[in-house]
């Protein structure tokens, strides 16, 4: 800023001008404004997303403009750091500029102020008679003033002051800004940024095992400050964390290794999570010996070697899963072993598929809608209902744990995937049990659920037999014949030819077997005139129901079991089977993976930070609060009392001229001015005009 030749105290005009500019209020306010605007950008644009998302969202054109500006990681860009640096510079210079004068001011007494200058002060008053000197001094002491007495030429004048902390407050508050910025920069990635600029380090952008990440993207354990994340499955250990760096990441080595012994989630009775906790061992990197053990919880980090370990997230750590693999084409089942969070190859009907397992969720606590009392007819209108509900701080919820679920995708050779959400436990509905499977083709869509009815043993096998019988064309003739026999035995279709009836039954079965109810409907729409459709549909449905009964019986016999009587329960089972069979047509590859067991392995996500600047920032914060308090709530006051020639003159100034000063002055005046002359001077005018200049 200053040229070399000019000594520090007499900067060249240009340097002087820069100094003036940087230490000016105008510059500070402009900086604050620019900083605010820059900060807003970072909150409106989601930061640190994967870069492909941005390209997708903004398109190539804007992406190419935004990306170099660092708009996807505003707070770590060079220009943002530069802004902060300017704030520091400006605040420092401002302190540099004001503090010497302030200190002088604090130390000074201004005891030489003469009569005329006292009279020029906005708050002054005079009265005949000299105040009692002892009384004056006592009052000043009592009010917390320090004072100096000056006596000359038969003038006795005392200059008093208090509230020096007000000025120190300025120093504290502004120094605090600098201190906090220094702390922040210590913890920011400034050193790393510089190394990146110099080409010593570069983030890794490829997805690869961390051991293979090259040296240029690794940071040693002696790194001064970092903040990174790592996910550790139960039983496993990690000795690195990953630092986010724009498009890629750095691998930060730790001075120790963390092993996750177990992860726990506790729940409230309402189903919300109450506690996330990880039991961990800290291992020596070299020997692998346990150095210490403990539990990390949300809001309860653990500090090792100056590195704080936080509970940041949790998930499934790759749990062994077992499935029953039901082939929907031939109704057979085979066991299948898999692991969550992994992918494996699978052949379905001769086609290659990839099974991509996602999360195993052991608890699925759902609010299943309104409880009975909320639906009751007692609360007649909506408003009354709202009132009665709003009166209680405890809501009634219909919460149920649906038990464990597994989410997975089946991806075919062309890359198309169908996603499934399968529940392990049977789900009750009106006293009947079902296996539930959810399916969707787009991630953004909700799952559509299919309920497969379970038999009296709680198994899906019976349904699978019915399902198979309904879809196997080779069985249709026998089913159709049996259906026709049954119909004529009952006498329901006496007018119709039996063979014709069997033929219709077969065609209904064929239609249903080619695509469920929708196919049957399409068939009707194509063949039957609109005005007859309703009746024909009724008939077809009846026929289908009858055929289903026979298919059921046939399936039982083929499995070597006795057909079940068509009582209410079994009939309902059959109707549910028809619906499920129809729904399964749009289920993607012809396989249903029924979860049958798992061994839960959880994973815990830790955030590890080393932040040496934290203490500095906290210190700055304390200074800041103290400073602001002093500036606002300590009034710097100066008071003069001048006894001269039988008259008393008092005058008062403060750094703030406002109503408080008026009150204070009135109080001192009442205490100090001799009472002989009440109202000798007009009351001080309230400070109303623009004022407030310091000193």
């Amino acid at each position, binding site marked *: 800023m200053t040229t070399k030749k000019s000594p520090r105290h007499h900067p060249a005009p240009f340097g002087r001008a820069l100094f003036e500019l940087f230490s000016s*209020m105008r510059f*500070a*306010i402009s900086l*604050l*404004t620019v*900083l*605010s605007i820059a*900060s*807003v950008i*970072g*909150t409106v644009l989601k*930061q640190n997303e994967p870069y492909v998302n941005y390209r997708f969202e903004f398109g190539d054109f804007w992406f190419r403009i935004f990306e170099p500006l660092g708009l996807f990681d*505003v*707070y770590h860009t060079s220009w943002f750091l530069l802004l902060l640096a300017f704030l520091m510079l400006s605040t420092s210079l401002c302190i540099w500029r004001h503090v010497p004068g302030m200190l002088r001011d604090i130390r000074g007494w201004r005891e030489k102020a003469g009569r005329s200058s006292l009279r020029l002060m906005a708050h002054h008053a005079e009265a005949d008679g000299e105040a009692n000197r002892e009384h004056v001094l006592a009052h000043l002491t009592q009010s917390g003033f320090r004072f100096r007495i000056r006596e000359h030429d038969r003038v006795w004048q005392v200059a008093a002051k208090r509230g020096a902390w007000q000025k120190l407050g300025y120093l504290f508050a502004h120094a605090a800004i600098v201190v906090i910025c220094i702390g*922040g920069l210590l913890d920011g990635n400034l050193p790393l940024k510089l190394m990146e600029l110099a080409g010593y380090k570069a983030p890794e952008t490829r997805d690869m095992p961390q051991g293979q990440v090259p040296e240029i993207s690794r940071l040693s354990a002696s790194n001064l400050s970092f*903040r990174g994340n790592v996910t550790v499955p139960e039983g496993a250990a990690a000795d690195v964390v990953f630092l986010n760096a724009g498009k890629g990441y750095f691998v930060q080595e730790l001075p120790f290794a963390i092993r996750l012994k177990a992860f726990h989630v506790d729940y*409230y009775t*309402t189903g*919300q999570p*109450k506690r*996330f906790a990880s039991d961990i061992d800290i291992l020596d990197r070299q020997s692998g010996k346990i150095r210490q053990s403990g539990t990390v*919880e*949300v*809001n*309860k*980090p653990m500090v090792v070697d100056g590195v*704080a370990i*936080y509970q*940041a997230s949790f998930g499934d750590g790759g749990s062994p899963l077992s499935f029953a693999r039901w082939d929907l084409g031939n109704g057979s089942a085979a066991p299948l072993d898999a692991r969550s969070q992994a992918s494996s190859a699978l052949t379905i009907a001769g086609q290659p598929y990839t099974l991509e397992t996602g999360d195993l969720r052991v608890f699925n606590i759902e609010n299943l809608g309104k409880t009975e009392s909320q639906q009751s007819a007692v609360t007649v209108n909506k408003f009354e209902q*709202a*009132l009665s509900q*709003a*009166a*209680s*701080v*405890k*809501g009634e919820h219909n919460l149920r744990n649906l038990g464990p679920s597994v989410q997975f995708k089946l991806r075919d050779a062309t890359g198309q995937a169908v996603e499934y959400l399968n529940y392990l436990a049977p789900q009750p509905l009106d006293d009947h049990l079902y296996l539930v499977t959810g399916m969707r083709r787009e991630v953004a869509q909700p799952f559509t659920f299919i309920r497969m009815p379970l038999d009296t043993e709680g198994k899906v096998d019976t349904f699978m037999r019915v399902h198979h019988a309904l879809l196997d064309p080779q069985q249709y003739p026998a089913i159709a014949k049996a259906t026709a026999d049954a119909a004529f035995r009952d006498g329901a279709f006496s007018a119709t030819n039996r063979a014709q009836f069997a033929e219709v039954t077969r065609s209904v079965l064929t239609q249903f077997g080619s695509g469920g109810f929708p196919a049957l409907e399409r068939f009707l729409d194509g063949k039957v005139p609109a005005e007859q459709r309703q009746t024909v549909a009724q008939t077809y449905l009846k026929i289908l129901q009858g055929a289903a009964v026979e298919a059921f019986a046939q399936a039982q016999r083929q499995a070597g079991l006795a057909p079940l009587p068509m009582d209410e329960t079994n009939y309902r089972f059959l109707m549910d089977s028809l619906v499920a069979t129809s729904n399964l047509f749009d289920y993607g590859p012809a396989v249903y993976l029924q979860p049958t067991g798992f061994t839960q392995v959880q994973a815990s996500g830790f*955030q590890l*930070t080393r*932040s040496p600047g*934290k203490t500095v*920032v906290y210190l700055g*914060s304390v200074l*800041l*609060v103290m400073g*602001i*308090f002093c500036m*606002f*709530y*300590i009034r710097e006051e100066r008071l003069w009392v001048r006894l001269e020639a039988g008259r008393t003159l008092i005058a008062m100034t403060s750094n703030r001229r*406002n*109503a*408080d000063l008026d*009150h204070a002055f009135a109080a001192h005046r009442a205490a100090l001015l001799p009472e002989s002359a009440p109202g000798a001077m007009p009351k001080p005018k*309230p400070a*109303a005009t*623009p004022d*407030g*200049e*310091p000193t």
Partner: protein
Amino acid sequence: MTTLPAKRPVGAIAFTALVLVAAMISFSRYRGAMDYYEQGILFACAAGLIWFGRFWPAMQRFLPLCGAIALAAIELYDRNLARGGSNFFLKYLLTSQSLVMWMCVLFFLATLMYWIGLLRRSASSLSIASGLTWAAATASLSSSLVRWYEGYLIGPDVGHIPVSNLYEVFVLFCLITALMYLYYEARFAARSMGAFVLLVISAAVGFILWYSFDRGAHEIQPLIPALQSWWMKIHVPANFVGYGAFAIAAMLGLAQLLVSRGILASRLPSYDTLGEVSYKAIAIGFLFFTIATILGAMWAADAWGGYWSWDPKETWALIVWLNYAAWLHVRLVKGWRGNVLAWWSVIGLLVTTFAFLGVNMFLSGLHSYGGL
């Protein structure tokens, strides 16, 4: 800091004695359930209350009254939450929800009376309005105390200080804003300001009503792990002193702008008084907002592993803070007065409101607990 002269030293002594006795009773009864920190906090709170009572003598009546109402409710509950729906007094008066409803009604009435008083220059209407505001504030603090207790009736692990969701903090906002306003009203003997300040409280009350009827937000929910922190208990109230103060400043800024155009000029306090109160409010708000932001940083350091993550909520808090820092600078250093500052404080409230509500609604981040 100037303290109002205590008009009734007897009251001050009685209040001090009451707080001390209450603290001693709590201590002897619940000592076993508290660790040393909590015992320390108990006595620090007692000292704080005594100081507060001396600083603002009206509190010497207000606080014991709210305490008595809460104790009455606790007595009537008799450890059974269901009594809230069966006991007559509880149902219509003393459950936290009834108290909130009373608060809402009283605030609306107070707003109405302030406007009547302002427009008809009726001192008696204004004084009724002031009384209604006091009553509303009483209902508000009592409701929070009762709610605190009700949480524990739902389940010992569910209970917590009611500052954890948007509904609870709105009640807190109404309370703090009303109390701060009542303080300035007495201090500057300027009751007609209430017409403006109560508008913003009424808006908050409207929100509370919508929020509890439409969204059922009044239900007490247990704390998720991230919120189970000691810092929350002071971070949130400190923030709301800030928000309340900024809201008052903005409404007085609005009044100033009207006065400068000659509207209501003869009925409102002088332009400069409004400016002065505005400044006072922003100064105290700024102090508390600073403290709140720092506490938030300390909490974040415990919960998320970093005292500053540039999370949208944090960033907007910084923006609000910078905004008022700039405001204070131009007033105190540059000596600005007048309409520019008034406009600025009105805009400041918009920025603050965005930081408070908008961020939760429109931006996602770590703070996404209080979503609508």
